[in-house]
């Protein structure tokens, strides 16, 4: 039986009287690729924010696998959750714009490495050694994603597709157990989307991690997901394999509206 990495139990959140996420229970297993779909405003991103700790739920619990045990993380702030193995990307790209590509990746490695400011200030040999090591790690990560060429470019000068890609690389640099991708294909052209599809598959294989994906591009979602959750009005409308979902009348209705 595959191990459960993350679990949300009856998660609910209200903003000023509006229930954005309503008693959502979901589970993600080890090395699983889950798609999270639903019409605009269905509460997908809000759910991400609840899981990653940006919002605190009104009720319900979030658990994450910690040394083979599911432990509750409701009270933890985002950075602590990240340290427990949650990584994410954002719908509207949030790169460190003034930094170079490699620096973006290095920043993501901060929490994992102990830093010694004194060494840095004195520029001891140890500091150079650590920096060289980190850079090498970052470079090899960039290499996997074919971004070594642009390692020293400023992040905000990259083409859009590359920026999306960098955001994913950066998230991976935290060596997460579970990766949340919030609309990674938004704003991409079909070719970029196709590349992204391959990339996501590659990540899952190569890094052996759980991926949860919000995406509107159904071609992509259907191609990569093993299992889908469909959200509507903050509730889970359906769950199942891509095939099931594509033929689920309730889902079709949610997407294309009443037919007839």
């Amino acid at each position, binding site marked *: 039986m595959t191990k459960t990495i993350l679990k949300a139990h009856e998660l609910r959140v209200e903003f000023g009287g509006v229930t954005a996420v309503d008693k959502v229970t979901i589970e993600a297993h080890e090395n699983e690729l889950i798609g999270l779909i639903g019409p605009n405003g269905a509460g997908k*991103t809000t759910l991400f*924010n609840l899981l990653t700790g*940006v919002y605190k739920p009104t009720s319900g619990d979030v658990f994450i696998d910690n040394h083979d045990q599911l432990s509750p993380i409701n009270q933890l702030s985002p950075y602590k959750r990240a340290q427990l193995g949650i990584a994410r990307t*954002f*719908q*509207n790209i949030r790169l460190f714009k003034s930094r170079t590509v490699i620096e973006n990746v290095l920043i993501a490695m901060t929490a994992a490495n102990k830093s010694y400011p004194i060494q840095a200030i004195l520029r001891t040999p140890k500091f150079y050694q650590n920096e060289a090591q980190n850079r090498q790690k970052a470079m090899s990560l960039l290499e996997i994603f074919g971004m070594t060429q642009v390692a020293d470019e400023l992040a905000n000068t990259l083409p859009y597709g590359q920026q999306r890609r960098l955001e994913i690389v950066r998230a991976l640099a935290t060596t997460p157990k579970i990766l949340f991708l919030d609309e990674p294909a938004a704003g991409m052209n079909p070719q970029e989307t196709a590349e992204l599809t391959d990339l996501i598959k590659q990540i899952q294989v190569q890094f052996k991690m759980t991926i949860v994906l919000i995406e509107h591009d159904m071609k992509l979602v259907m191609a990569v997901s093993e299992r889908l959750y469909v959200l509507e009005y903050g509730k889970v409308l359906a769950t199942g394999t891509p095939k099931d979902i594509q033929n689920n009348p309730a889902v079709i209705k949610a997407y294309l509206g009443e037919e007839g």
Partner: protein
Amino acid sequence: MIIQQLINGMILGSVYALLALGYTMVYGIIKLINFAHGDIYMLGAYFGYFFLRVLHLNFFIALILSMAICAVLGMLIEFIAYRPLRHSPRIAVLISALGVSFFLENGMSYLFGSDKRSFPQAIETTQYHFGSLQISNIQIIIITTAIVLMILLNIIVKKTKMGRAMRAVSADEEAAILMGINVNRTISFTFAIGSALAAAGGMLIGLYYNNIDPLMGMTPGIKAFVAAVLGGIGIIPGAALGGWLIGILETMTQAVGLSNYKDAIVYAILIVILLLKPTGILGKNKREKV
């Protein structure tokens, strides 16, 4: 005596409130701490001085004229020093505002000397006694003018087309554009109103304390800004509330014998309030969209 001190605080607070309104309106609409606002207050007093001393006009006519001129000046300052920086980093506009403030303070000092001038006593002071309470006609004029102007402002903001446009731009600039609102014109208008209120404050203070000087806007300027923040910057009733609160706080610290630490106490309370309510007393927390 407590009540007397409260009244004192209210009067002092009225002036802070008039100034804080200008800060808050400008902040609400373009997110700028307009450091030059206190200096408009000073200019208002100087124009009043000119109209009363040189032209011998009636106080209220002088008040309206001074408000009108400062309104135009406010728009001019916005046009020259802030508008070109509308899409620049906010701190650049802030420094530009500081520049304008230095310019006005020192320009006036250069032209007219930095010595105090006595403000013409256009209205003779008389005292009224109510039991042990005492209030002068000037004090009554200050409180009334402040309240009348605030009501007027409220009417402008609530009931007029321009006022609605102001609120719309401040709430959601893009949606306001989609209503056909000219944002530049609306911002100009905001500066005009804010500056007119500051000018009124300056003249009232001139009349009340009877002295004006080019640096008179510095301290009240900062205090009024603190008041605006305390009330929740960008919120019009918040400014009035903050102004009165600071006025009363200052008075009360003196009344209990802590005059040495007056400003320190005001700041300490401000910090505590901000820590409890990070966006000011009437402020609303806005979450960043993720």
